[in-house]
């Protein structure tokens, strides 16, 4: 196993996960313009739902996954309806929403920990016996390949929806100016609710895929979310492709950064990259 191809593959795998988080986050941020930190906990919600249905109740794998995605989406929607929507109606500042989102994150994580303990759990039944592909001297597992494919598919779907459907255009319009969108007759409340549902579902799916790849724990959300946010800022916040580009760039920087120094520095590297970008190119690589 050569080191360079494996590093490249690792970067691509990490990039696939980050890009899913970034896609969901970007969708929500692009529409509502606030940092929904509570979104991080929804990956854990997705992962643990599958854990419950698949491993505890013994339901069929695909049924469990679909249920997990739906539950993550539903909880995202409930949080929006009960917390963010009233705040947004009152024209609260972005900071109020961010603090409320911090509350959502803390509470959701802890509830999951009470229900399922804070132990590290893995979703896949057969650890170590997964199909493995050799590419250019590096190794990639089946789950990781699936993650990569799903990430690309979701990106394409979101891109197409934005370009060709009325819903996508409405979402874009709200992102540009919510007041004007209301005036021209867009039901903004309904559209934003759907955005939260879809965004949260994507976050949940990311959590599920991570659960099959490595494993889940209640506090997985925050660091994951921060990576997604960093990816969005690097790539261009509010831009669908920017988030994905940023995710892969971030993954490459992280993985090649820890080539020479200890892997524990990964998070620090990510934030150094964030701060550099915020200082010198706050609009990201691809402007919206």
């Amino acid at each position, binding site marked *: 196993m050569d080191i360079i191809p494996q590093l490249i593959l690792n970067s691509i795998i990490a990039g696939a996960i980050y890009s899913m988080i970034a896609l969901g986050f970007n969708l929500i941020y692009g529409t509502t313009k606030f940092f929904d930190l509570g979104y991080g906990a929804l990956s854990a919600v997705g992962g643990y739902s599958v854990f419950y249905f698949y491993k505890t109740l013994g339901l069929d794998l695909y049924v469990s996954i679909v249920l997990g995605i739906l539950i993550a989406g539903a909880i995202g929607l409930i949080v929006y309806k009960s917390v963010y929507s009233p705040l947004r109606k009152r024209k*609260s500042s972005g900071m109020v929403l961010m603090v409320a989102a911090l509350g959502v994150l803390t509470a959701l994580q802890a509830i999951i920990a009470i229900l399922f303990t804070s132990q590290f759990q893995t979703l896949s039944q057969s650890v170590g016996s997964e199909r493995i592909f050799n590419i250019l001297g590096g190794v990639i597992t089946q789950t990781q390949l699936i993650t990569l494919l799903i990430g690309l598919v979701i990106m394409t779907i979101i891109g197409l929806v934005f370009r060709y459907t009325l819903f996508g255009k409405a979402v874009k319009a709200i992102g540009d100016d919510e007041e004007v969108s209301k005036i021209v007759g867009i039901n903004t409340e309904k559209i934003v609710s759907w955005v939260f549902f879809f965004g949260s579902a994507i976050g949940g799916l990311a959590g599920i895929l991570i659960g099959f790849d490595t494993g889940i724990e209640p506090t997985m959300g925050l660091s994951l979310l921060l990576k997604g946010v960093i990816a969005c800022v690097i790539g261009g916040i509010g831009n669908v492709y920017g988030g994905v580009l940023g995710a892969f760039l971030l993954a490459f920087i992280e993985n090649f950064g820890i080539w020479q120094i200890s892997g524990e520095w990964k998070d620090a590297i990510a*934030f150094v990259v964030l701060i550099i970008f915020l200082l010198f190119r706050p609009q990201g690589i691809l402007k919206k």
Partner: protein
Amino acid sequence: MEYLIHIAILISIYGILGLSLNLVVGFTGLLSITQAAFYGIGAYTTAILLTGTGMNFFMAVILGMVISGVCSLAIGFVLSKFKDDYYALGSFGFNVIIYSIFLNWQSLTRGPLGIPGIPRPSMFGFTFSENVWFLVLSVVLLAIIYLVCQFITGSSFGRVLKAIREDEQAISVFGYRTLWYKLAIFVIGAMMASVAGSLFASYITFVDPSSFALTESIFILAIIILGGLANNKGAVIGAVCLILLPEILRFVGFPNDIAAQMRQVTYGVILILLMLYRPQGLVGEYRL
């Protein structure tokens, strides 16, 4: 009795942290979520100096303040380039970076193992080894810091800070260099947090990185948001409430690990409810 003293010491420590962050968030309107980093710098400086060189506690406190001050000057300078949400995101970043340093600079901090056996403070041959005397010391330090905060916020310097919070552009038109004011208060806040860190290290006699993670910063933020922004009394009241609350939960009879999670749920729910129904907190004079 010992138990009550323990709670009172914790309240003093978190009271200091609340006061220090309130200067930055409440009075100046900068949503900084990195206070635990300076708290940690104070704690680690004390721990390393006391165990390594046998220096006097009070000298170590002063050195800790100096180191925190220098770090916060650099961090504050970078953060001053950002606004609102991005300020918060950037401050997140610095917390993660400093936490990584605690975790990975193993030759200095012993990484995840932490530093045990930190001695209690001593002065003129008298050692604060009894918790009662340690409580006296903490309360005296809390009182001093409270008075300093009162002095700062009541002075003309404090009025400029409030003006920056309300309208930075307007006050800079009057010829005030807002950058220097923001830097000054950020550094003062960090130095105060460092004092709290020194107290914590020598009280618990053990430090490890987990006490200074991002969640700790969020907890300190919750203290001042609950107590009330831009009110020094509020910061202390917030500390009293948030330290007492989980202790009450403990008496309700939850098992220990669930009680810890219940605490998190309570903090989260408190943040959400405050943002929804009382964004100025209990006695606050400013809403985010």
